[in-house]
C-alpha cells in the first residue's frame, strides 16, 4: 500500500457513523486499499453501485462486458500486483457468470474477493427472480464464502474476506449480500481482520525439517530444483536465487513459477511439464534429490506418477500441509512460508557447483534446440510460426513485458519462449486452463501496473470466448497490446486429434470473422500480418504504441507444440516430434 492509500485507509477506519449497508461495502473496500474493482451492475447489487457512484472519485469501478471478464480482470490485477483483486456482480446469472473466474483463481491460488448481490432475505429459497444459491454453487471453488443478511455484519465479514483471500496460500472468497442488508443501516466501524481462530494461514517452519533438507541437498550428486508459484506468492525470489546459486543446483519451473528467476540465469534450465523443456523433464528421472518448492505436483507436471522421479529422494517445501504426499510421496517435508524456509535453508547449504550434472542439461538442450527450437524461432518454411512472434516480442520489449497468455498451443509457446527479466511476468490460467482468460486478465494487469508493458497472447479460439472485452479496453483506454495468433483452428485440440485420433479434426476448424475490423469497430488500432517480412515492423509498431493495439498474426495452420509428454506417459518418455 502506498502512503496515500494508507492515509485514506486510516481516515475511513477512524470514522464512526450510521450509514447504509451499501455505503459500508464501499467504505470497507476503500479501507482495504482497493483502488479498482471490476464488475457489472444489476437489480440485486444496485444499492452498492449507487454508493460507488457517490465515491467515484476515490474508487474506480470498471464496467466489463461480461461478469466472467470482471473475474478474470480481477485475477490479472492480483497476479501482477500481489494485491487482492475485486469483482462484483448482481445475483443469479451475474453471480454464476463469475464462477469460471473463481474456479480459476482457486486452482491457481489467486487472491480475489467477489461481492455478489442477492435477493432480499425474506425471498431467499423462494426461487425469486434472479435468485441462485451462489454460496452453495461457489462452495467447492472458494477458499471461503459467506452470505450476509444483515447490514451490521458487513464490515466484519468483508474484513474477514480480505484477510482470508490474501493470507497463507491465497485464494478467492465470495461474499453474497442480500438486498435488504444493502439497504439496512449500521453503526459503521471498520477493523481489519488479523486472524480467524480456526485458521492457521502460515504454519511455522520446523527447523529440524530444514536441517534434514539441507543434509540431503548437501549429500546430493545430481540435485534438481522444481519451483512453482509459491515462490512468487511468498515473495521468495531472492531467497530462491540465493539457494540455487550457493548450492549450484540446476533449477526448473512450473508454468506458474515462470519468471521468478530470470530466464537468462545460467542455472535456469527451463520449464517442466507436458510441453516443458526436454532436459528438465527427462532428467527428473535421473536426479538423485528432487527439491520441489511451492509447487503441487500437478498431473501436467508429473505425467505418470508411478514412473515419476522414483530414483530420487524428494524434498517438498510448501505452505499448505495438505499438498505433502498428496501426489508424490516425499522423504522430507518442509511446511511453511517459502521465504522463511529458504532463508533458514541457505546458511545450512554447502557452496557447490555441479558442473558435469549441469552439462547433462545443456547437452539435452542442444538436442531440443536442433530438433524443435531452431525451427520454431528461426523457421525456414514459408508460414509464420508462433515461436518467431514471441521472439520478436522479446526483442522489442527487451524481456521486460508481462506476458498474459490464454490457453492452448500459443500459451505453451508463450511460456516456452518468452524471456522474463522481471518476476510476476507470466500471467496465465495454469490449473483450470480457461480459454477466454487472457484479454480480461491483461486489462486487469495493465490497470494494476500501468508502467509495465502488458502483452496478451491469444489464440483465435480463446479470443472469441471473451472478445467483448475489447469494449472495456476501449472505454477504459487501457493500453494493452493484444496479439492474436490465428491458425484457424482450436490448435491444441487439433494437435491431439492429429497425434492420437487419426487426424479426425472433429469440430476444431474455425471460420473466423475479420478480427481487425472488429478491433477497429472498438476504435482500437489494429493490423493483420500474414508474411514474415511484415513481422518485425508490426511488433515494433505495436510495442512503441502508447495506446492499445491489436495485432493479428496469421500463423501456420497445422504447427504442433513440441516437446510433448503424452497424457499419462512418463516424463522421461517426452517426445521431440
Amino acid at each position, binding site marked *: 500500500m502506498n502512503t496515500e492509500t494508507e492515509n485514506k485507509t486510516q481516515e475511513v477506519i477512524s470514522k464512526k457513523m450510521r450509514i447504509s449497508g451499501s455505503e459500508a461495502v464501499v467504505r470497507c473496500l476503500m479501507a482495504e486499499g482497493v483502488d479498482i474493482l471490476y464488475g457489472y451492475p444489476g437489480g440485486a447489487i444496485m444499492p452498492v453501485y449507487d454508493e460507488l457512484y457517490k465515491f467515484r472519485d476515490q474508487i474506480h469501478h470498471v464496467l466489463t462486458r461480461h461478469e466472467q471478464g470482471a473475474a478474470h480482470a480481477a485475477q490479472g490485477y492480483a497476479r501482477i500486483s500481489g494485491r487482492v483483486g475485486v469483482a462484483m456482480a448482481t445475483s443469479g446469472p451475474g453471480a454464476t457468470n463469475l464462477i469460471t473466474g473463481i474456479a480459476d483463481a482457486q486452482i491457481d491460488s489467486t487472491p480475489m474477493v467477489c461481492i455478489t448481490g442477492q435477493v432480499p432475505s425474506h425471498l431467499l429459497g423462494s426461487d425469486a427472480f434472479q435468485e441462485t444459491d451462489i*454460496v*452453495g454453487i461457489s*462452495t*467447492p471453488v472458494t*477458499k*471461503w*464464502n*459467506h*452470505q450476509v443478511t444483515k447490514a451490521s455484519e458487513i464490515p466484519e465479514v468483508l474484513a474477514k474476506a480480505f484477510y*482470508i483471500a490474501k493470507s497463507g496460500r491465497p485464494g478467492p472468497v465470495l461474499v453474497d449480500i442480500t438486498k435488504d442488508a444493502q439497504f439496512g443501516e449500521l453503526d459503521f466501524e471498520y477493523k481489519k481482520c488479523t*486472524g*480467524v*481462530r*480456526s*485458521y492457521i494461514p502460515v504454519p511455522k517452519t520446523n527447523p529440524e525439517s530444514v536441517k534434514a533438507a539441507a543434509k540431503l541437498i548437501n549429500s546430493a550428486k545430481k540435485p534438481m530444483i522444481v519451483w512453482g508459484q509459491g515462490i512468487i506468492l511468498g515473495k521468495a525470489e531472492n531467497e530462491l536465487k540465493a539457494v540455487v546459486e550457493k548450492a549450484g543446483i540446476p533449477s526448473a519451473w512450473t508454468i506458474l513459477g515462470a519468471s521468478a528467476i530470470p530466464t537468462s540465469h545460467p542455472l535456469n534450465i527451463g520449464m517442466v511439464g507436458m510441453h516443458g523443456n526436454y532436459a528438465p523433464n527427462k532428467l527428473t528421472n535421473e536426479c538423485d534429490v528432487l527439491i520441489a518448492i511451492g509447487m503441487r505436483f500437478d498431473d501436467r507436471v508429473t505425467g505418470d506418477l*508411478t514412473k515419476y522421479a522414483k530414483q530420487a529422494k524428494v524434498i517438498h517445501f510448501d505452505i*499448505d*500441509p*495438505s499438498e*505433502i*504426499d*498428496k501426489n508424490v510421496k516425499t522423504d522430507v517435508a518442509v511446511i511453511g512460508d517459502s521465504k522463511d524456509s529458504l532463508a533458514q535453508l541457505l546458511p545450512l547449504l554447502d557452496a557447490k557447483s555441479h558442473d558435469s550434472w549441469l552439462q547433462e542439461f545443456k547437452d539435452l538442450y542442444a538436442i531440443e534446440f536442433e530438433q524443435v527450437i531452431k525451427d520454431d524461432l528461426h523457421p525456414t518454411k514459408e508460414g509464420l510460426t508462433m515461436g518467431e512472434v514471441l521472439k520478436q516480442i522479446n526483442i522489442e520489449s527487451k524481456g521486460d513485458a508481462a506476458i498474459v497468455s490464454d490457453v492452448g498451443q500459443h500459451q505453451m509457446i508463450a511460456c516456452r519462449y518468452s524471456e522474463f527479466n522481471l518476476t510476476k511476468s507470466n500471467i496465465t490460467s495454469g490449473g483450470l486452463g480457461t480459454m477466454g482468460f487472457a484479454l480480461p486478465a491483461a486489462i486487469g494487469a495493465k490497470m494494476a501496473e500501468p508502467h509495465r508493458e502488458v502483452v496478451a497472447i491469444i489464440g483465435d479460439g480463446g479470443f472469441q470466448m471473451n472478445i467483448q472485452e475489447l469494449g472495456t479496453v476501449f472505454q477504459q483506454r487501457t493500453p494493452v497490446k493484444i496479439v492474436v495468433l490465428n491458425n484457424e483452428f482450436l490448435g491444441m485440440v487439433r494437435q491431439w486429434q492429429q497425434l492420437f485420433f487419426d487426424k479426425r479434426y472433429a469440430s476444431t476448424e474455425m471460420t473466423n470473422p475479420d478480427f481487425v475490423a472488429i478491433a477497429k469497430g472498438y476504435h482500437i488500432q489494429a493490423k493483420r500480418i500474414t508474411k514474415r517480412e511484415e513481422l518485425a515492423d508490426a511488433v515494433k509498431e505495436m510495442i512503441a504504441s502508447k495506446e492499445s493495439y491489436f495485432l493479428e498474426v496469421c500463423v501456420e495452420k497445422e504447427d504442433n507444440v513440441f516437446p510433448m509428454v503424452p497424457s499419462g506417459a512418463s516424463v522421461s518418455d517426452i517426445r521431440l516430434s
Partner: protein
Amino acid sequence: MNEEIKTFTISIYTENNIGLLNRISAIFQRRHINIESLTTSQSEIDGVNRFVIVVNISESQAKKIVGQFQKQIEVIRAFYHTDEETIYTESCMFKIKSSLLFEEPQIQNIIKESNTRIVTVNKEFFVLEKSGRRNEIESLRRDLNVFGIMQFVRAGRIAVTKDEMKVTEMLLAFNNQ
C-alpha cells in the same frame, strides 16, 4: 497401490457456522467417497461442533481427506481413526403395534434379552430404543421384523477415541488466540 479398504471414523471439530456441512460433503463427493453415516453435534468445547463421519476407504485416502478438511477455514482440527482405536455406538428406534406386545409374548423376551428400552406405549403403538454396535441393532431388527415394524430409524455412529485426542492442545491454542 491396492491398499486395504477399512472402516474409518473421521472426526472434524469445527466452528458452528452455516454452510460447513456443504464444504465437508463436497470433499467426499469430489473423491467419490460414500458416507456410511454422519452425525454432527456440539462437542465437549463450547461453541465448537463435532462431525463424526464413517467411511470405508484406504488409509492414504483417509490421510488426504483429513488434510483437505483441515484446510477449510472454519475447521479447527480433523482426525481419522480405525474401529480398533475408537469406542463407538449407534442408536435406533422401532415403532411397533401395541397389540403385538400382548399377543406375541416372544417380543417381551426379545426386549429383555437385548437390553432394549421402551420409550413410550400408547393404544396404537409402542416405541423401543436400542443403543449398541451395528450388528446388535441389525440382529434386533431381524428379530422384530418377523412381527412387523411400523417404523425404524437408526442414527449415525457416535464415537470417542481410546487414546487422548489432543483436545487439550486444541483448547490451549484457542485460548491463546
